[in-house]
């Protein structure tokens, strides 16, 4: 009974969210003058992909918004089911490899704790892990994380979860609603570590986001990104694809009552560039690539990409 009621509640939530996000902008029609409509045309013609379908760039943001508003509350439970719990291992590994927090006593004021910007980290998954690591492993009480997300529903979920952490209502944790492609509120050369975990896939203009990351990072600062990637083993790839396209939308339908959002999710994974292509994009933004540039997790299902802003 309870599952039925929660499910119907879910459905209601997600429909309301969709209605809000999908307010259609009526095409500008002017019969007396042709200039305005001509001006608008190239903007509308620039298409980007939303899963397997092509949509105008202006529309992708609101569509992705609808998806994540719809999945916000069931985000963790769904991640557990879809990845069979492996996403927690990935995230732990990601944070451990970054080793956030100053492990040496600070000599200058600048060295007191790291300034971390967690993009698309709405639910705080990565942010809390990084703060925990800084506090418990490196005994650094000064490292602070700014969680930035474009989606207010995801941020609300993160705020709710931060209540259970020791960082709630301290200067070490803050939330910002912003578009990662354009962050005028963050000054140049101010961030030590920029992380984006399972988020950059949904950006409309990935290169613009990378350029913005390059701008806000201090020289020597690190861009770290974990994202679904291409599996290199054909056997594993076959199993993985089958799981993605058959099981995940079904789980989405049963558990979250929303098949379409999870259909988008797997399609967007499929459309994301390969490890080498994405490394090229990071390089194009001006970052130095350490070693091979990426680390495959579970045979390439996910990959960690890193780039370092060179010292001027």
């Amino acid at each position, binding site marked *: 009974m309870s599952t039925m009621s929660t499910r119907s509640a879910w459905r209601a939530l997600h429909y309301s969210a969709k209605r809000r996000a999908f307010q259609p902008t009526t095409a500008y029609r002017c019969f007396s003058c042709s200039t305005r409509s001509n001006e608008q045309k190239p903007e509308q013609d620039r298409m980007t992909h939303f899963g397997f379908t092509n949509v105008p760039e202006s529309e992708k943001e609101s569509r992705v918004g609808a998806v994540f508003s719809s999945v916000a509350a069931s985000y963790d439970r769904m991640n557990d089911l879809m990845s069979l719990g492996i996403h927690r291992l990935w995230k732990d590994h990601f944070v451990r490899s970054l080793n*956030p927090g100053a492990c040496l006593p600070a000599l200058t004021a600048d060295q007191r704790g790291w300034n971390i910007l967690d993009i698309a980290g709405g639910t705080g998954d990565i942010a809390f892990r990084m703060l925990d690591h800084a506090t418990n492993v490196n005994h650094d009480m000064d490292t602070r994380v700014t969680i930035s997300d474009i989606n207010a529903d995801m941020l609300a979920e993160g705020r709710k979860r931060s209540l259970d952490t020791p960082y709630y209502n301290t200067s070490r944790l803050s939330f910002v609603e912003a578009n990662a492609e354009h962050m005028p509120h963050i000054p140049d050369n101010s961030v030590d570590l920029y992380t984006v975990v399972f988020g950059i896939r949904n950006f409309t203009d990935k290169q613009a986001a990378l350029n913005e990351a390059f701008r806000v990072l201090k020289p020597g600062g690190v861009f770290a990104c974990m994202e679904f990637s291409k599996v290199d083993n054909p056997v594993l790839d076959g199993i993985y694809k089958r799981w993605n396209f058959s099981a995940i939308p079904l789980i989405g339908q049963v558990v979250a009552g929303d098949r379409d959002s999870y259909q988008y999710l797997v399609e967007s994974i499929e459309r994301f560039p390969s490890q080498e292509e994405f490394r090229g994009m990071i390089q194009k933004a001006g970052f130095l690539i350490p070693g091979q540039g990426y680390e495959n997790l579970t045979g390439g299902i996910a990959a960690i990409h890193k780039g370092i802003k060179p010292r001027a």
Partner: protein
Amino acid sequence: MAHLTRTLPKRLFRPIPTPFIHQTNQLSTTTRPTTTTTHLTTPRPNTVPHQNQRPYHSTLHARLPDHTYTNSQTAILSAALDFVPTTGFTLESLTHGARSAGFLDVSVQLLPRREFDLILFWLASRRGLLRSKVEDGLFTRLAAEAGKELSVDEKVKALVLERLKLNKDVKGVWQDALAQMSLLANIPLSLTELHALSSDILTLAGDDAVDASWYTRRLAVAGIYASSEVVMTRDPTAELVETAAFVERRFEDSRAVKEKIGTVGEIVGFGWNTAIGLGRSWGMKI
């Protein structure tokens, strides 16, 4: 894959152009066509086979660098080496290095292998130092001290000792480094580096064997060096006297083993020839 190429034996470190290169050089000088034609029509007798040194590697290209780290990586790593004697081959040293090179704490992400990168950099840079010591006249100095020209074996021994002395400052933390190197994931690169070092030692000592004995000798040098490294970490003397004695004994051993193998080979060969001769004398068609 540059480190793999480095493991190939480098017989020649002095660029000595062969007559063939002379010839190509002359062929490329189109300004003097008469000399070219005379040279082509009357080739000089080839004197190379009688020379001892025959290059395996092109003398027209510069030697590969000792390591393949980028400028920023090298800056952090070489700054970190100053901290190694006190804090060891640790992330702490790397972070100190990043700070003193003007980077941030987080910039150690430039080195994906962390502490192991520091160890590899130490090994590669010491290997380069050994080479530059030889180029600065290490052997002439040693020969003057000994009062005679050094043989190849003596040179090899001197180089092994000289390389061990370069580790003197990090003697206290070298066991940690050895432990790191023996981790499963790190073994291939550690062995590659050991091979590169033993190749370098043989090359610098002027070993110009062009048969399988090069490989056995390289294996022997690698074994002696690796075992004396362990002895060095427990050597209480400042000038590594005990280690030097250990190296001396190991070279004696390897000489003894070589002699024994040689003797056994002779016996087997003699026995085989006798058996064949005996068979033929009995009328067998062998």
